[in-house]
């Protein structure tokens, strides 16, 4: 286990939350708005009344234990394969925002052009381990079929792992159909997960038809899923954080149980986007002390179940790349990484509680994420790092700048900033760039340097034909 391990709950606290969730699952049940899921759970022996499924605690514990402790997501380029679990953390860009906020704070509906730009940035940015999913809503494309364009773009223009469509069983099937020929056919997929999809519960205590339909389809193909709950303490859950966690935990356990019932061993990630309600306006607030506590608690709960975990992100309620955006995002990345979260969706780009993406914020968050990844790596203590020989050699009053030990070690020991300004005042004052202005330069340069990784022509044609045929079907 990593030396850096933030704990905010005792083992006894975890046990109490677990027991409360099991009690909720058994006595209150989960409203499952997807008939095939209700059927599957009924056949597994769960008591069902209408669409309300009452889970047997022993069955839940048995099924959750069948989920893998960790797994590898396979990428088109094997150097981008991602291990999900253990002490590793995978950073994933912001997801699903319908707006972009430009430098200076002007908000506008996001477009396909933004989508492509962010995709290229995600591919280029070293800190991003996946290219992500719906990077922003391309509002200028037909909302019924835009997920097809989005999936194709990920496959075509990035060689990193991507996130699938959760747009019902159909969205999941299309995701599988598009990925199968890229990874050697459908049977090959069952052996190795190549896509991970965000499946959200509806708080409190519901699984909706669309997401649940996608869940069952992905489970059939043993593709990975983040099963995530978003309890807003004070509105969609109790105002008390322990109660909010009990509700979240019940929902996630229900989703995991369903996935393992459909196909035991399906890789799942225990997910949480839980946060609090601003009690003045009813709006969600996603970056605060309470959210950081929920995030760290989620890591502890997932570890209790032996399942990889998703929580946190470069999150903020701010509307522009300012001080608030910086300190909130740093907190909301520090908490999950130090607590042992393995998959951080929304690592980069988010403004205004998931509603907006910002290119400049993307760069700032990547920097924060890089700093925190370094922090998580902790301090190696061994003969080389203790450096006794070189200290002896330099002796009192000398310096280490010209030692071979320094030259050899500083690059791995010290992370070099991409964005942070470390110049003297004189150097900085020539242009007096703010973080936002500096970040704008970085992303523009990164975009200009993007290189098309290419994709086999015949494969491109095959995928395009599939997409055209599906579009005709969907829009007819």
């Amino acid at each position, binding site marked *: 286990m990593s030396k850096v391990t933030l704990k905010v709950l005792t083992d006894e606290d975890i046990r109490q939350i677990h027991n409360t969730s099991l009690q909720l699952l058994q006595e209150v049940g989960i409203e499952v708005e997807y008939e095939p899921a209700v059927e599957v759970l009924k056949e597994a022996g769960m008591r069902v009344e209408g669409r309300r499924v009452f889970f047997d605690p022993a069955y839940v514990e048995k099924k959750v234990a069948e989920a893998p402790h960790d797994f590898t997501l396979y990428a088109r380029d094997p150097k981008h394969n991602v291990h999900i679990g253990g002490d590793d953390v995978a950073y994933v860009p912001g997801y699903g925002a*319908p*707006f972009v906020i430009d430098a200076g704070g002007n908000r506008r*509906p996001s477009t396909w052009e933004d989508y492509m730009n962010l995709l290229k940035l995600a591919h280029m940015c070293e800190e991003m381990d996946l290219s992500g999913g719906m990077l922003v*809503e391309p*509002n200028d494309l037909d*909302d019924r079929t835009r997920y097809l364009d989005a999936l194709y773009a990920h496959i075509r223009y990035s060689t990193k792992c991507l996130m699938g469509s959760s747009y019902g069983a159909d969205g999941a099937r299309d995701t599988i159909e598009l990925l199968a020929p890229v990874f050697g056919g459908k049977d090959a997929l069952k052996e190795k997960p190549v896509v991970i999809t965000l499946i959200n519960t*509806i708080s409190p205590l519901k699984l*909706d038809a669309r997401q649940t339909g996608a869940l069952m389809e992905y489970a059939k193909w043993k593709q990975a899923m983040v099963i995530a709950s978003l309890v807003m303490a004070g*509105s*969609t859950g109790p105002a008390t954080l322990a109660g909010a966690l009990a509700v979240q935990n019940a929902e996630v356990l229900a989703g995991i149980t369903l996935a393992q019932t459909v196909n035991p061993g399906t890789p799942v990630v225990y997910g949480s986007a839980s946060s609090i*309600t601003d*009690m*003045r*306006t*009813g*709006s969600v607030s996603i970056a605060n002390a309470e959210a950081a506590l929920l995030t760290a608690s989620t890591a502890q709960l997932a570890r209790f179940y032996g399942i990889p975990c998703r929580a946190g992100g470069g999150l903020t309620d701010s509307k522009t790349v300012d001080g608030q955006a910086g300190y909130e995002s740093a907190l909301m990345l520090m908490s999950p990484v130090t607590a042992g979260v393995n998959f951080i969706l929304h690592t980069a780009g988010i403004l205004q509680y998931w*509603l907006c993406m910002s290119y400049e914020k993307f760069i700032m968050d990547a920097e924060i994420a890089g700093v925190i990844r370094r922090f998580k790596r902790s301090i190696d203590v061994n003969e080389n790092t203790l450096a006794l020989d070189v200290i002896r050699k330099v002796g009192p009053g000398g310096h280490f700048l010209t030692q071979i030990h320094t030259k050899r070690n500083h690059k791995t020991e010290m992370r070099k900033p991409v964005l942070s300004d470390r110049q003297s005042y004189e150097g900085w004052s020539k242009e007096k760039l703010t973080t936002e202005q500096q970040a704008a330069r970085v992303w523009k340069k990164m975009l200009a340097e993007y290189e098309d990784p290419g994709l086999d022509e015949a494969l491109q044609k095959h995928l395009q034909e599939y997409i055209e045929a599906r579009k005709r079907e969907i829009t007819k």
Partner: protein
Amino acid sequence: MILEELKEAVMEGDRELVEELCQKVLDEKINPVEAVENGLIKGIEEIGRLWTEGEMFLPDVMMGADALKAGLDILGPELSKAKAAGDAKEGKGKIVIGTVKGDIHDIGKNIVAAMMTAAGYDVYDIGFDQDAAAFTNKAEEVGAQIIAASALLTTTMGEQKELVACLKERGLRDKYKVIIGGGPTTQGWADEIGADGWAETANDAVSLCNKLLAG
């Protein structure tokens, strides 16, 4: 003092106490117009004031609005008689509110409804996953001035456009002010679909209604 008790009970958001007191109003033949105007409404006005000052929070407003509604349900028949006789003031206006078809997010809508109630409007909440016809029919039934439609998803925003189209089709477009709101919506979207207004927050929604009805 039952009027003071009614006011306090609304401010406490104590629905059961409000119901009990309203029953007492009927049983003891206390003037129902007095009970509403100088009791229940005073309570909700006070909540509105304290909320504006930052001393009360959403649960206070929403529970207060619920308690008020429970009281009005009991006193309703008597109040209608008084209104018919011209003894009671007409309300500020009638608003039909709901979340559009395909969308089950109703917390924001509930908050807006509570704020409108607190501001003195008669609010008819038709719930969530409601199609354009449901909004239109309810507005026709109660004689509303404003129809308010909420959508949280980019995939359900289109239903707000449907609502405007439905009103046009039935020749009712000019009869109602249509206002929209919800996470992904904007003033630009409201303009595009020909709605009469858009608001980002519950407070703005109330100001918008005031403005539309004053105009």
